[in-house]
C-alpha cells in the first residue's frame, strides 16, 4: 500500500510543480493581492477632505481663508464650471457658495460619508470664525491598534479564499483532466487502490496548505503587523479542515464532469456565491437579514469567520466550535456524495 501512495503523491507534486502557471496562481497571486490591498488601505493620518469654494461668489477669498485654518479641510477657490465638474466626479466632497456675511450655501451628496464629514467641519469652522464659543471641553485619545485595520480584516479572508480555490481547482481540474484523457479508466483497470488515488490528491493539497498559509499569514504578520492572537495550532487546524472541505467539494464537482469547460462552469457556479457572500472583502453582515441563514451556512463563511476569530480576537477552539461544526458537516456530506457519484470512466 505504502509504495503506491508514495508514487501517487509524488506524481501529484510533480504534475503541480511542473506547471509554472499553477505555481504562480497558488503562491504569488495571493501575496500580490495582499500587498496591493495592504498598500491601498494602509494606516495613514486622518484623511484631509478636499472641498471647493465658488470663486465667483461674494467674499469667496475670505471664506476660503477661514476654512483653510481647519487642518482637516483642504479648501480651494474654483471657477464655476470647474467647481461643477469637480463636484460631479468627486474630486471635492463639498462646494461652499457664500451668499452674504451671515449666509452660505453648501452643495454635497449626503450619501457620501466624506461629504457629511466635510459638512460638519465646514459648519464648525464657519460658526467658530463668526464668534461661536464651545461650552463642552472634549479630551481626545486616539487608538490606532493593529487588528482593527482593513488589512487585518482582509488577511484571514484571503487565506480562506485561497484554500477554497486551491481545493476546488487543484483537485477538480486534475481529476477531470485524468478522466478526459481516459487515464482514470486505465488506472481503474490496474490493481491500484482507488481510495489511495483520491487520498494522494488530498495529501498534496494538505501540504500545499501548509506552504500557502505560512506564506500568506507570515507575509501579513511581518510586513503589515497583522496579529496572531489565538493559538497557532487552532489556526492551523482550521486551515487543514478548510482544505479538506474544499478538497471534498472539488472531488464532488469533478465526480461526473467529462470536460474542463463543464467542470469550470460548475466550479464558478459553486464559488461565486462564496466570493460575494462569505465576507472575504467586506463583512457578511452587510447582507439583508433574510439572506443570513444561507450565508452563515456556506463553508467559506464558516472558514473565514473561524480564522478571523482565531487570528484577530484570540478565540479558542470553543469560540469557533460552531464554524468547525459547519465545516465538518460539509466535509462529510461532500465526501460521501463524491464517493457515491464518482465515475472512473
Amino acid at each position, binding site marked *: 500500500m505504502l509504495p503506491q501512495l508514495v508514487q*501517487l503523491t509524488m506524481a501529484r507534486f510533480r*504534475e503541480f510543480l511542473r506547471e509554472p502557471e499553477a505555481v504562480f496562481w497558488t503562491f504569488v497571486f495571493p501575496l500580490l493581492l495582499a500587498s496591493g490591498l495592504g498598500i491601498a488601505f494602509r494606516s495613514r493620518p486622518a484623511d484631509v477632505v478636499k472641498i471647493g469654494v465658488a470663486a465667483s461668489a461674494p467674499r469667496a477669498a475670505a471664506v476660503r481663508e477661514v476654512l483653510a485654518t481647519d487642518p482637516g479641510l483642504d479648501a480651494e477657490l474654483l471657477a464655476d464650471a470647474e467647481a461643477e465638474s469637480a463636484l460631479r466626479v468627486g474630486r471635492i466632497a463639498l462646494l461652499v457658495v457664500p451668499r452674504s456675511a451671515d449666509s452660505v450655501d453648501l452643495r454635497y451628496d449626503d450619501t457620501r460619508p466624506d461629504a457629511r464629514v466635510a459638512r460638519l467641519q465646514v459648519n464648525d469652522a464657519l460658526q467658530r470664525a463668526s464668534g461661536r464659543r464651545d461650552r463642552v471641553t472634549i479630551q481626545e485619545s486616539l487608538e490606532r491598534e493593529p487588528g482593527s485595520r482593513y488589512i487585518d480584516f482582509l488577511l484571514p479572508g484571503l487565506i480562506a479564499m485561497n484554500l477554497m480555490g486551491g481545493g476546488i481547482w487543484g483537485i477538480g481540474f486534475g481529476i477531470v483532466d485524468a478522466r478526459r484523457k*481516459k*487515464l482514470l*479508466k*486505465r488506472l481503474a*483497470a*490496474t490493481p*491500484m487502490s482507488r481510495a489511495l488515488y483520491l487520498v494522494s490528491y488530498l495529501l498534496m493539497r494538505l501540504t500545499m496548505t501548509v506552504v500557502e498559509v505560512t506564506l500568506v499569514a507570515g507575509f501579513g504578520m511581518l510586513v503589515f503587523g497583522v496579529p496572531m492572537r489565538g493559538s497557532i495550532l487552532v489556526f492551523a487546524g482550521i486551515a487543514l479542515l478548510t482544505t479538506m472541505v474544499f478538497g471534498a467539494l472539488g472531488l464532488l464537482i469533478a465526480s461526473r464532469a467529462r470536460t474542463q469547460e463543464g467542470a469550470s462552469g460548475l466550479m464558478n457556479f459553486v464559488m461565486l456565491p462564496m466570493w460575494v457572500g462569505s465576507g472575504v472583502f467586506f463583512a457578511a453582515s452587510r447582507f439583508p437579514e433574510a439572506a443570513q441563514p444561507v450565508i452563515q451556512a456556506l463553508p467559506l463563511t464558516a472558514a473565514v469567520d473561524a480564522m478571523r476569530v482565531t487570528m484577530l480576537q484570540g478565540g479558542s477552539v470553543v469560540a469557533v466550535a460552531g464554524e468547525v461544526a459547519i465545516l465538518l458537516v460539509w466535509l462529510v456530506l461532500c465526501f460521501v456524495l463524491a464517493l457515491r457519484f464518482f465515475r472512473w470512466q
Partner: protein
Amino acid sequence: MPPLTALALDVRALRKRYGAVIAVDGLDLRVTSGECFGLLGPNGAGKTTTLEICEGLLSPDDGDVVILGRRWSDDASELRQRLGIQLQETQFADKLTVAETVRLFRSFYQKGHEPDAITELVQLAEKRDARVGTLSGGQKQRLSVACALVGDPDLVFLDEPTTGLDPQSRRQLWELVERLRAAGRTIMLTTHYMDEAERLCDRIAIVDRGRVIALGTPRELIRSLGAEQVVECAVRDGETLPGDAIGALPGVLRAQCHGTSATLQVTNTHETIPALLSLLATHALTLTELRTHSPTLEDVFVSLTGRHLREE
C-alpha cells in the same frame, strides 16, 4: 480443443447492448495460454466492447467470461493483479517522465518487473527521462505497452495497438509484440489491419456485428477460401462489367462485381485471365486495371461479409 486448464480466456455467449445498438451479439472465444490471439474486424464490430468486458471495465448483459480460471464477479482484485492492459485512447500525464510513469504503474502490482528493464524492452531506454508530453505517437504507444507489462501479467490485452501510427512506428510495435510472443506470453489483441493480424497472431477470430464469423490460424482462414489467386480488374468509367458472365469464366470460384470493378477468387489464374480478357474484348470494354495477388485475410472478410475491413 485444448484442455480446459490451459485456457487463458473462455468467453461464452457474450452479449452487450448500448440502448438500441447491439455491440456484442452472442460471441464465443477461447484463448489458449501462450498464444497470441487476434480479434480482427471493422470498426464497430464489437472488438473493443468484448475486450473491455474481459478487462473488467464493462459488465456484460449476458454470457459467461472466465479469465485465467477466475470470474470478475468473484476475484476482481486478483484478476487486476494478473492482467496487463493497454487501452485505445489513454493519454498518460504529460508532465511525468517515462521512468516516473512506469514506476508509478509498477507500484500498483504486488509482483512485477524492474521498471528499467521494461523501459529497455519497449525500446524507450533513451527516453526514460523525457516527459511523456514530448514523446511521438509510437513512443507513447510503447509506453502504454510498458505499463501493461510492468506487473508481469499472465494475460496481456492490446486494443488496436497500432491504430494511428506511422509505418515505422507500427513496425517497431510489431517487433515488440513478436518479442513478447516469442517469450511465451499470452496476448489478445484487436486490430482492423489484416496484415497486422496475419503477421502477429497464432490464431484469429474474424468478428463482424458482434459475432465471430470465422476462426483459425491465418493460414487456415486463407486456405478456407480455396482460391489460389485473387484477380482484381476495372474498366473505364461509364462502362459496366457483365457480372454473370465473369462469374461463369473458367477457374473462377467466386466473383463480386461493383459496376466498373470486379474481384475474382480463382483457382487457375492462367486459364481465367485470358478468358477474362477475351470476354472484355467481346463486350468492347476497355480494361484500365488488372492485378493479381495471393489471397489475404481481407479477401476472407470480403467473401464472408461482402464488405471490406476498412470502408473508405
